[in-house]
């Protein structure tokens, strides 16, 4: 019999700090301030459809960009020799040693109309470009902050793809596109899944990035939730309802995505 004992600390942790709070969120979402049952909170979320859609859209764009940037890099990294790999992974992690807020704050000074980038552009005679307070700046902030979460899982899964496997594909007459499409891509799917989840989920719920880089004029769902809990709205019941709806949507997105993953893998091994 396999002992479950080693998992016990985490199970207790999970029950206390994940299951119980989740239950509380559900409870709050379906009650009024006095504890009466209501679905008014949930139906009120409908008003914020625009905010929710914009959050999903920006998070999706950021995720795709992260994937496009990280995938070639991770592949290159995994083929490089060990000492180069170690140095480069270190460089990928380096920005993460600095506080998240400071990193975003730094982008503020870079992107501002009187900021560094525009000053440089001014030197070569290009007029100031409006960069901060745009959705593009928000996406940039997300990509910059969450890129390592895409690179790391991709890298760790790609180092497991042996060079011999690629050589075998070439032996069998596959050109580089075919060996990518039929060998590398299917084998790296689990890494893509993890990476996408780890970028998409924090991107969709971020609030500080949109506030600092987006100018606060076009709020995201994270800002909305923050307003309900520690902002001036203070309505935890509505906040919980919004969180709950967002959680359901993220879960659905993820599960759809995972089914795609399963069929891919069963396609190879089945």
């Amino acid at each position, binding site marked *: 019999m396999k002992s479950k004992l080693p998992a016990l600390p985490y199970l207790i942790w999970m029950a206390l700090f994940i299951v119980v709070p989740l239950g509380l969120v559900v409870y709050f979402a379906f009650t009024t301030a006095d504890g009466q049952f209501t679905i008014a909170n949930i139906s009120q979320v409908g008003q914020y*459809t625009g905010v929710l859609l914009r959050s999903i859209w920006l998070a999706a764009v950021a995720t795709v960009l992260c994937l496009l940037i990280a995938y070639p890099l991770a592949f290159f990294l995994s083929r490089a020799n060990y000492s180069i790999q170690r140095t480069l992974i270190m460089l990928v992690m380096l920005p993460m040693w600095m506080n998240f807020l400071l990193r975003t704050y730094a982008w503020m000074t870079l992107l501002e*109309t009187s900021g560094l980038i525009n000053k440089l552009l001014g030197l070569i005679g290009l007029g100031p470009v409006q960069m901060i307070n745009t959705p593009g700046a928000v996406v940039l902030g997300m990509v910059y902050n969450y890129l390592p979460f895409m690179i790391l899982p991709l890298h760790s899964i790609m180092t497991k793809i042996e060079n011999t496997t690629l050589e075998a594909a070439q032996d069998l007459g596959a050109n580089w596109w075919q060996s990518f499409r039929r060998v590398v891509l299917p084998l790296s799917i689990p890494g893509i899944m993890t990476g996408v989840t780890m970028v998409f989920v924090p991107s969709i719920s971020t609030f500080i990035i949109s506030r600092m880089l987006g100018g606060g*004029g076009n709020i995201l769902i994270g800002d909305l939730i923050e307003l309900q809990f520690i902002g001036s709205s203070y309505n935890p019941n509505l906040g919980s309802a919004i969180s709950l709806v967002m959680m359901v949507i993220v879960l*659905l997105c993820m599960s759809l995505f995972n089914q795609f993953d399963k069929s891919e893998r069963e396609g190879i091994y*089945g």
Partner: protein
Amino acid sequence: MKKRVLSLILALCTVFSVCFASLPAAAAAGSSKTKYSFDKSGIDYQKFKGKGVSINVYNWGLYIAEGEDGGMNVVKEFEELTGIKVNYTMYATNEEMYAKLKSGGAKYDVIFPSDYMVGRMIEEDMILPLDFDNIPNYDRYIDDSFKNLEYDPQNLYSVPYTWGIVGILYNADLVKKPVDSWDILWDPDYTGDILMFNNSRDAFGIALKRLGYSMNTTDKKQLQEAAESLKKQKTVVQAYVMDEIFDKLGAGEAAIAPYYAGDYPLIKADNPAIEFAVPKEGTNRFVDAVCIPKDCNNKEAAELFINFLCDPVVGYENFLTIGYSSPNKGTYDMLPDMYKKNEALYPDQQVLDNAEGFINLDTETNEYTQQLWTEVLSDDQHVNKWLIPIFITAALGASLYINISRTVKKRRGTYK
């Protein structure tokens, strides 16, 4: 009031380095006797000495003198004077503090709510009437014009700590038009140079005042009108910010912003071109007060602390750190003329007469304002509100379809 949220977080980030840096300094300062003389008449500060009493103080971030630049460390001075241990924690918004108290998760003895929050906590029976016999400095030093204010009409529950007005900060190099009205914040000539409060109460307060209404209106029509004008204003606003205005105004990234007068000297020091103006329509006068929550540990010790805060010397040190005007007469007398004559910190009586304080609004008005505010901030409200349910159903359907078709294929053995 709505004190530097950002700086608080940034300060926390550097807390480790500060800890290490200040260790030797703290050890050296610990042995020295105090160099300040406090007004001890009518109060026994020694009452709890050696009794192991401690109080929990819950304050805004960066809202007390902490001994920087050789100034007073208020908490430490109090501990040395009374032998009462102070557990000091911080919050960033009134609502955060309110939520913490409401949830009953922690016990606090001294809190610092703003005017409207004092009103709300009185209404919800969350704070205790104070025993002013234990706070003799209140009668001695607090200016009469800060007693019996609208949020606490009989002044039973609160002692004012700081106050200020909201005004318009502008860069005189960039703004050539006269700044004497809230209208400048709506002026298309300054499109993209205007910052606005990222805070519904302040933003609506300005919009309402500009339209000639009360900041405390409960009339939905007036609120709606204010929301419409805020939506119009959006086309000229560069960003909705709070403490970011320090950087943006300081660096010349923006030219005009409404903000709290107490922060004006700080921004002015950064950029001398910044000027301060009070709009003729009238403005908001805010007060941050000190109160004692209902389930405190030791009310008398908490009152000793409040009395200590009302000491002119402590008020003076706090003023130097916080920069917000003090309601303390003794403190005012100690101030150099540059502060006393500053029209942002100590404005004319005429400005104050024309200013309005926030009171606690009823839940319905609060919720309605919030709803309008969210509408202002998210411009595409015309999106169909059934999209979310439709999306959820579609996703569930797709997921179901994939699973079913897969099992069917598997059963037939044709899955490849």
